[in-house]
């Protein structure tokens, strides 16, 4: 924080760089955030280098992957995390599945966050007829059963990873828009926004420099919560047959493929479930820390 005592005045670019570096440094000083970052990094590395980490391909049905009775192998031994009902290596499936889940979790969630924020901010800031139309549309989307909508969309397009991501994004932005709308409209009524108008600031400046920064915390919280929601929604869609198509693994469809054998082979449900939980938790930890770090009023209250 010693670096903040120098007057930075108004030069926008250097200030931004300055602040960015500060944010990362401050983030790394929080043990929980560090743990979250480590889990995320591990997952990403695992997904990227999956072919080099495991000997088998995820959809290879191995003869030695089943017992003589045809039951899956428990964790340990030749297969670190055991095998599934078809004798496929579970570790390979989880690592390759991380690719799908990360893409869904980050891409779909990112798109839904962007749409939601855009709709919410515009409706909350401009109000009037335009705002009303946007919000009534949001209400309509909210009233529509999300799963049904997802199934419809998935039926129209050929299900593929990208289509699934798009479908999830189109379903999930509604809640974000609602929250952001409420916050934006209360922010717009605050006195400092009026003060900005009184010095002649235009709508664009007020929106981007004075309203958006206040929404970071909500966006981050929703973004991190949304990751687990989207990963699970993808799992649900896979289960209904409109998600990522087998044999491509995703954490969600591993669980749903194997859930009926939960009693006999609990690891098949438990391990991918633990992976989803750990990733969601990691994003939540980082998100929480990021929210505090970005809020200057929290400075110095580590």
């Amino acid at each position, binding site marked *: 924080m010693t670096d903040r005592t120098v007057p930075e005045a*108004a030069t926008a670019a250097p200030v931004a760089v300055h602040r960015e570096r500060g944010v990362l440094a401050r983030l790394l000083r929080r043990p929980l955030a560090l743990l979250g970052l480590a889990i995320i990094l591990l997952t990403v590395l695992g997904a990227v280098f999956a072919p080099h980490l495991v000997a088998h391909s995820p959809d290879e049905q191995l003869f030695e992957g089943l017992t003589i009775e045809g039951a899956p192998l428990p964790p340990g031994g030749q297969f670190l995390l055991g095998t599934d009902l078809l004798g496929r290596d579970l570790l390979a499936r989880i690592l390759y599945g991380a690719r799908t889940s990360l893409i869904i979790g980050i891409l779909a969630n990112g798109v839904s966050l962007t749409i939601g924020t855009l709709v919410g901010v515009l409706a909350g800031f401009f109000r009037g007829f335009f705002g009303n139309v946007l919000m009534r549309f949001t209400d309509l989307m909210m009233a529509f059963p999300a799963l049904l909508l997802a199934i419809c969309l998935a039926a129209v397009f050929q299900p593929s990873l990208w289509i699934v991501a798009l479908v999830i994004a189109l379903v999930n932005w509604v809640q974000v828009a609602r929250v952001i709308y409420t916050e934006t409209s209360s922010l717009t009524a605050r006195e400092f926004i*009026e003060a900005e108008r009184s010095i*002649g600031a235009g709508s664009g400046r007020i929106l981007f420099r004075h309203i958006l920064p206040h929404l970071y915390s909500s966006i981050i919280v929703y973004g991190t919560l949304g990751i687990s929601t989207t990963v699970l929604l993808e799992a649900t869609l896979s289960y209904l047959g409109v998600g990522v198509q087998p044999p491509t693994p995703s954490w969600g469809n591993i669980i749903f493929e194997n859930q009926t054998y939960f009693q006999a082979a609990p690891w098949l449900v438990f391990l991918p479930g633990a992976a989803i939980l750990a990733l969601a938790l990691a994003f939540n930890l980082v998100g929480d820390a990021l929210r505090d770090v970005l809020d*200057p009023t929290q400075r110095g209250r580590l």
Partner: protein
Amino acid sequence: MLTRDEPARDPAREPVLTIEGLTIVVGGEAGPRPVVSDLSFTLGRGETLCIAGESGSGKSMTALAIMGLLPKPGAGIAAGSIRLGETELTTLGEGGLRRVRGDRIAMIFQEPMTSLNPVLTIGRQLTEAIRAHQPVGLAEARRQAVAALEAVRISEAERRLGQYPHELSGGMRQRVMIAMALALKPDVLIADEPTTALDVTVQAQILQLLRDLQAELGTAIILITHDMGVVAEVADRVVILRHGRQVEEGAVGPIFAVPREGYTRELLAAVPRIGEGAGRVASRMAAATRPLVEVNDLTVGFDLKGGLLGRVQRRVHAVEGISFDLRAGETLSLVGESGCGKSTTAKALAGLVPYAGDIVLDGRNVGGLPRAQTKAVRRDIQMIFQDPFASLDPRMTVGELVAEPMAIHRTATAVERRERVAALFERVGLSPGEAGRYPHEFSGGQRQRICIARALALRPKLIVADESVSALDVSVQARVLELLRELQAEFGIAYLFISHDMAVVENISDRVAVMYLGQIVETGTRDQIFADPRHPYTRRLIEAVPVPDPARRRDAFPRQAGEIPSPVRPIGQPPERLTLGEVQPGHWVAGH
């Protein structure tokens, strides 16, 4: 430091509340920090004790400690005792405290708007408070509630029971709070800044009411306030606090007449008094030049929609055809009570609300200009808001905030801006090294200085100051007013100063315009208005200001019969326009 040699003057007055060596600590990053240390005082039956001090002096914490309502976790009583009669309150459990609260000690808060439950009727809230402490039936509780409302001089008490808090004005709500507090005839009433949020005329009535009720019921009152005028008006004895320490304690007369401690003297000296401004030389006025700002027939109204189809049914006539002008280097004050349209006038000038009529700045009509030119004109009018805590974006550094107007209007390069920010910081009395900090790291007075620096950044010709010193402590207020005066002398800026505080207005203005219900009822030079007020409303405003001198206490303030009429009118029924007549050169009064 501690001066306490004034025993209860009247031996018949046994103390109802005794506080000894009270120390309150608040947990912080660096361990517990005392906010009140070693405070001792007694309160006699039927006595009014004022605890006075500036923000952060620990006066509200003391009140909360007596009520057992210190915020948990975080704050706690570290040492000392609070005795109510024979009961020691500090060791009493939550259950015991609950029986004491309301029944033997009652409290009224600053903001009557938020301390009443908005979704329950007045009657329900009153009867519940009564029945929580007395085993009485609903009918009896209702009878007592009506009696309580009548005691605080609320008209049509029966009907009020069925009303909700939002249907009452601020003054009425505070009366309801007092009625609720006094319904159970407590021994001690703690009033935490009970009139700070109210208009002066309403404040005068509430203070009068407290005095009357005390005479009838013999309740001991602890009144917490930052306003030395209020202290002089109602107190028997005063405790002056600073940074949680007792600076001085004693009977109100001697403290005001011969304050012993330096801090008390400073505090009293900082209080703006009506009559002080009269001797001061008016700021240089170039009488020959044409006015800098001419406002003609300014009208601002808001439509209220209602009914199923959302049609416009009623209209708020916030500002109704006012005209005034203002020369460079001159200060014109707009005074009036809440709802009179003074802030709306300020907003119209700053371009924040649509208006009808003409605002002419430097010969150019601000209204009919194309967008680009409007922006240029806007540069010449800057505004300072009331609440320095709310009017600065908490996510930007103060340096960025001060530089922002220059960035918006592109009046300087980045390097020039940086230099100018440093110069402005220095000019308003802040260190340029602090530009990288965020608003929450500054005190209220410093933040208002930042707002002033921001307003100055574009070298405006007119600064509209909307209640800009109302939220500040008196000593800070005095320094900020001094700064504004210096800046005016230096740059020849014209101020449109908007305030409800007559004493401050008298201090800073060259000319004054009194507003009532959206119209100007009287306007003239400061001396004309204060020495020779003609309109009855102006007179009432001036009389209502508490005089910071216990020797000149007003015995009876004429009570206002009803509520201030509402500026909301049905469509097609505009209010009658007042015509001003000139009674002296430059002194115009409505109805003459």
